């Protein structure tokens, strides 16, 4: 099939307007939020499962690769069309199909933006728990692909803990329904396998998600520490005391400095660790728990600790943390976001070792971490025009990955493997471990055409597919 014929066929399926193939159009779909560029051969936007299925069937017939795409904001290269082929976007599938608080379910199309769903649910007194930092642009479909997290993971889990069922288009166009609106579905948990599969198992066209009642009361605290170690100990002591906060976020000195540069929130520039702690649930007992947290922080030499007394104060305490990435970007537009996870008790130690790694490589790094679950995001700042510095940033990033694994953690807590950390998989998984994953991939995609060459370490004999 020639390129023209392919475009014509696709146009017959999704409509002419929803097949992009011009020079300009392909240029803007060659990137996501990582530095690499890979141009697809064509971009299509199906409106529903039937159209997506027809596209998949065509792709199967012609041996073309298919890469699903949401907002294209992932941080590991998951949306890059490594082998050209078809990029299938979900921008036309943006409907919230059913909101059913009585059954604690909502059914949505993959192109719905996470925050848009939250805003729709808020007036009803319900929420969808996974709230990644990218929520104002990332799609729910993308969240499922990456098994996105957010600040509330310690208490509420990640995306996979809030997905009940999926409608999926498989490699050959077959449309299946995994899981379902009810619990304990018979057979294998295909939903659980697909969440986090980074678009390599199929194209999701509908999702049944879990709704939760909003908490009655939220108590937010900001604690300022003079040392990372103290803040880390405070975190451990809080948990050891039997308190499970909804959120525990930490910013180090460099990030705090960037935040001060941008927003002048009144954070002291010499604070080594700023902690945001949030309790949620029934208001009864919250004050006492908050006081207990204050006590624990004081025991760990906290310099200052504030408890928000109103919604406005709560927003003010969060503003610095929410604007952290932005603040760093203002100081240094180019930064490499790392995403390692370590056991919580080793977080402070890891953050300090990250600083040492940065110093050794002569790069500047600031770290924001989800202290509650040990997921840290070192932001390594660099000047893209300085090729030497870019190399050093790469080296530092690799060392940080290794460090996280050495600390008993893993390669990625939220951003996924994509292509960015593919080659580091052997740090965590043996050949046998990977072999089992390959088998499952083969079950979903025997011809290796769905977002191929992602996640699993590249095999020596690469299978080439293309138009």
């Amino acid at each position, binding site marked *: 099939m020639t390129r023209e014929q392919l475009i014509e066929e696709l146009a017959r399926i999704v409509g002419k307007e929803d097949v992009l193939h011009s020079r300009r159009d392909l240029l803007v779909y060659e990137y996501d939020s990582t530095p690499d560029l890979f141009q697809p051969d064509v971009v299509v936007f199906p409106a529903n499962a039937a159209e997506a299925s027809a596209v998949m069937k065509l792709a199967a017939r012609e041996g073309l690769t298919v890469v699903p795409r949401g907002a294209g904001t992932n941080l590991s290269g998951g949306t890059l069309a490594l082998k050209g082929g078809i990029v299938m976007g979900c921008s036309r599938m943006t409907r919230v199909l059913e909101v059913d608080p009585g059954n604690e379910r909502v059914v949505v199309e993959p192109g719905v933006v996470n925050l848009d769903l939250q805003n729709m649910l808020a007036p009803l007194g319900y929420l969808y728990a996974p709230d990644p930092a990218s929520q104002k642009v990332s799609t729910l479909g993308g969240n499922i692909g990456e098994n996105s997290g957010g600040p509330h993971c310690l208490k509420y889990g990640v995306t996979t803990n809030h997905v009940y069922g999926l409608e999926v288009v498989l490699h050959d166009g077959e449309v299946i329904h995994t899981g379902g609106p009810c619990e304990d579905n018979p057979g294998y948990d295909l939903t659980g*396998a697909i969440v986090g599969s980074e678009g390599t198992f199929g194209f999701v066209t509908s999702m049944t998600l879990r709704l939760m009642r909003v908490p009655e009361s939220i108590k937010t605290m900001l604690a300022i520490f003079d040392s990372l170690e103290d803040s880390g100990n405070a975190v451990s002591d809080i948990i050891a005391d039997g308190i499970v906060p909804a959120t525990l976020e930490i910013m180090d000195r460099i990030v705090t400095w960037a935040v001060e540069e941008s927003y002048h929130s009144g954070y002291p520039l010499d604070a080594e660790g700023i902690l945001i702690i949030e309790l949620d649930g029934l208001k009864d007992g919250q004050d006492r728990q908050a006081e207990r947290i204050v006590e624990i922080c004081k025991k760990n030499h906290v310099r200052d600790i504030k408890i928000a007394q109103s919604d406005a104060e709560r927003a003010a305490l969060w503003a610095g943390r929410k604007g952290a990435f932005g603040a760093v970007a203002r100081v240094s537009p180019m930064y490499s976001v790392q995403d390692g996870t370590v056991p919580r008790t080793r977080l402070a130690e890891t953050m300090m070792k990250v600083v040492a790694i940065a110093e050794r490589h002569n790069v500047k790094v600031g770290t924001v971490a989800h202290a509650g679950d040990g*997921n840290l995001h070192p932001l390594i700042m660099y000047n893209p025009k300085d090729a030497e510095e870019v190399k050093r940033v790469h080296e530092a990033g690799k060392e940080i990955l290794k460090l996280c694994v050495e600390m*008993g953690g893993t390669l990625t807590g939220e951003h996924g493997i994509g292509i960015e950390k593919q080659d580091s998989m052997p740090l965590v998984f043996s050949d046998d471990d990977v072999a089992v994953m390959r088998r499952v991939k083969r079950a979903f995609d025997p011809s290796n055409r769905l977002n191929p060459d992602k996640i699993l370490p590249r095999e020596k004999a690469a299978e080439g597919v293309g138009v």
Partner: protein
Amino acid sequence: MTLTERSLEATRTRLAEIVGAENVVPGDRLSAYSAFGEKPVAAVLPADEGEAAEVARLADAEGVTVIVWGGGTKQSILPVQPRDGIVLCMARMNSTIELDAANLTVTVGAGKVMDDLQRELAQARLFLPLDPVDSARSTVGGTLATNSSGPNRLLYRTARDMVLGMRVATPQGTVVRVGGKTVKDVAGYDMKKLYIGSWGTLGAITAATFRLLPIAEASATVAIAFPDLGQACAMVSAVLASFMRPSTADILSHAALPASMRSSFDLKPSEYLLLVQAEGAVEAVERQKRELAELAGRNGAREIFTLDGADEKELWRQRKEVFARMPEERPAMLIKGSVLLKKVYDFAGGLMGLQGVETALAAHAGNGIVYGLVAAEPGQGERLVAAADRLQQLAADCGGFALPLKAPRLEAGKMRIWPPRDDYGLMRKIKAELDPGNLWSPARVPGGRA
């Protein structure tokens, strides 16, 4: 593949080489590993994952069926799995590999009995929020492989929400790591989700790492006797819509309760008991006790009991006796319905309204899960088949499905075990990839044998 007597001896010899002769179960004791009235061909107890993997390799080489065994509490769950192979019993792999209290994680061997684990954790003031009713005998591996859960799934969810990592002995004879030790982990595919609920069809879980919680400061259970089912269901809806976050919302019919519970609450035969447990800060528990009592009153409660301390513990111990044993003198079926929350009343009501059979009900009403025990008069076993069919239709109308869990062999053969789904094909492909020889519990392949 079944083994002839001669090849059986050879296999037993090889098994003894792997696990040691004393860990190959002698012929006269094989009945301990029976199910559906059949003894297995052989049974072994490996000491560690290495031995388990070797057994797997042997089975692969010989083409012999493998059936994984933990505490043996769910071996009789439908579909019928013939014992034409080796039972791989994980009971000896019961050590606590690492308890990391500061990080709220524990890594244990798959053979650890659930209650034993909870007792150990309690010493560190921690608990695993997974409370299947057979926890006195069921093992960690078995609980995960069968995706078992208990009443506190209302707040704490199920196995998939607390497993951080596992080790699995594969049909190829390797031992693989899936997941890790951290709550946030998206490295590679989430294989844990496939192994949880796989019923031994994809390999044997040899160890698991769990996320733990600190034992709550306080807890109390409000037990409410309702004149009818509708009121109990209405109360559950009201609780779910409120700000309360109870850990259980179980509705039990009179016939389901052990005698001790019936008398404790003086439950009349037509009445239903709702158990709502609140755990957490002292003040929050107090508040929920009050609010639940109030709600109960408004929903027509006949009587409200509040239990804490030792009484509460005893109540939940007795709860575990519900449906623990099938009636012996009559044909009976245990069936599990899973329906939409708003449809729990319709389904449960339909169950309790079945004619020509006796019914009892135990529901995790806040999760849409309804267990029903249906018993017929001797000789009227076909009524169970009709009941299963009726309930499956009803469950489908209620947005879900119903699975017959236990039934006499004859009647079970006439029931449809697997509800209609369009993803069995893919599940079979995964099974075929992970167990190409189709040796591991082949009768349990999702969707039934094609």
